[in-house]
């Protein structure tokens, strides 16, 4: 049985962590941390979870302690945001390279400088090649559902990779939503007990974790990681099917919104996809065949499936809430263009970088992107491939 509740994104993620009931949570308790671990620490203090809660002096230490706890054989979690994630960078690779199935909610916020604490995806995008699985969510409900599924996906024997569960800073993390949380016992049964194959606290069968791994074997271990990443898609779909049985909510690698017969569409991540749905609905009323592809699984990137979903469009715009400063566009644009290169699709692909540092993105702005797309579809002319949406000159 599930409960209908009104909670902020931070609150519902704290509830997800309570229901997952990890053995260890190590977190840096002050800014750029969010209310999520503060609320979770209250559950620890109130005896609502069995978790060993470790407060540390930095995010580098938070991830290090989480890595240690996971290597010891426990189900370990942490959470962070923005520059906190940036400070974890070195240890992110140790977690994925050591194949530790840690799950970490990340509240997406801009990286300073100049100093900014509001929503964009520059934090998560910095970690996009770190070997972590990454999920994005349109709202608090999806973030909650992704967190619970991520435990099973990360711990799956074909995967054994850590997961970042992204939710947009403030827009999702601080806004109250009407959502459904599952019954505690349903989550407990769904995530089950974690049993590591080999772990440090197994005195019967001692092992070494994290040894020197030079020219002779490092490459082989990275190859194992690449194979594990290629297994993720199937496991995501398998776990989603099981999750639908207990939640009634359907998940895939991405969501296609009115994309079937669409001629023009946008691709986006996070809360902006809700805004984009409103724009698509408005345009549909005006007879424009508009659609949206909302990416849920961003890493590993479901390239073939996305290319296949987009191939019949005349033009598509990729919305990026982060820039790469490579002059070749935002990260999702680069990924999507690369995916389309191998397909037989014949469509124009353009990029709109938007919303940096929490700059609001409005329905009308996304409608203006669709206007550009219609013009591109009609004329076949692309004036500018990489655009900045909502910035003043």
């Amino acid at each position: 049985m599930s409960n209908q509740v009104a909670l902020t994104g931070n609150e519902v993620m704290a509830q997800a962590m309570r229901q997952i009931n990890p053995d260890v949570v190590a977190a840096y308790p002050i800014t750029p941390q969010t209310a999520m671990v503060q609320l979770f620490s209250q559950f620890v203090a109130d005896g609502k979870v069995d978790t060993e809660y470790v407060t540390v002096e930095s995010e580098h230490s938070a991830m290090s302690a989480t890595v240690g706890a996971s290597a010891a054989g426990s189900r370990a979690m942490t959470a962070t945001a923005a520059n906190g994630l940036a400070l974890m960078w070195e240890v992110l690779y140790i977690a994925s390279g050591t194949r530790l199935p840690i799950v970490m909610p990340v509240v997406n916020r801009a990286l300073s400088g100049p100093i900014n604490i509001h929503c964009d995806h520059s934090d998560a995008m910095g970690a996009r090649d770190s070997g972590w699985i990454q999920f994005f969510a349109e709202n608090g409900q999806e973030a909650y559902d992704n967190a619970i599924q991520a435990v099973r996906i990360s711990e799956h024997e074909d995967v054994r990779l850590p997961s970042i569960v992204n939710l947009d800073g403030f827009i999702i993390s601080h806004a109250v939503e009407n959502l459904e949380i599952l019954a505690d016992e349903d989550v407990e049964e769904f995530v089950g007990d974690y049993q590591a194959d080999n772990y440090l606290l197994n005195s019967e069968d001692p092992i070494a974790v994290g040894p020197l791994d030079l020219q002779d074997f490092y490459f082989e271990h990275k190859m194992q990681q690449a194979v594990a990443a290629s297994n993720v898609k199937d496991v995501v779909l398998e776990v989603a099917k099981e999750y639908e049985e207990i939640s009634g909510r359907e998940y895939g690698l991405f969501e296609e919104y009115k994309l079937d017969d669409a001629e023009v569409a946008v691709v986006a991540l996070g809360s902006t996809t809700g805004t984009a749905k409103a724009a698509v609905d408005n345009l549909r009323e005006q007879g424009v065949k508009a659609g949206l592809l909302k990416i849920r699984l961003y890493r590993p990137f479901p390239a073939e499936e996305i290319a296949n979903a987009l191939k019949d469009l005349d033009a598509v715009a990729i919305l990026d809430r982060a820039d790469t400063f490579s002059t070749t566009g935002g990260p999702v644009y680069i990924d999507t263009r690369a995916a389309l290169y191998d397909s037989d699709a014949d469509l124009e692909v353009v990029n709109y970088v938007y919303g940096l540092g929490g700059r609001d993105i409005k329905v009308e702005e996304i409608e203006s992107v669709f206007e550009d797309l219609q013009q591109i579809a009609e004329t076949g002319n692309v004036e500018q491939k990489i655009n900045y949406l909502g910035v003043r000159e």
Partner: protein
Amino acid sequence: MVKPGDGYKDIPKGGLILEAGNAKNYKTGGWRTKKPILDKETCINCHRCWAFCPDSSVLSEDGDVKAEIDYDHCKGCGICAHECPVNAIEMEKE
């Protein structure tokens, strides 16, 4: 037990080493550029080299250091030669 040349399908995930006490299987002798040579005539068997060796590569048998040096693991750091009070150890280029 992982063997040199094993492929990615045959080795434990994530660089784990599943056998305990495995350091001796990793032969670090190949790192050496200079090799300690013990002059058994000059040696007074004081065991200083044995005590100082960071890799436990000076072998002592029945209280006698005049046994051998474990060249499979000696990295050639030269601490033994430096500590020897009677200059019985010389570092020779490999």
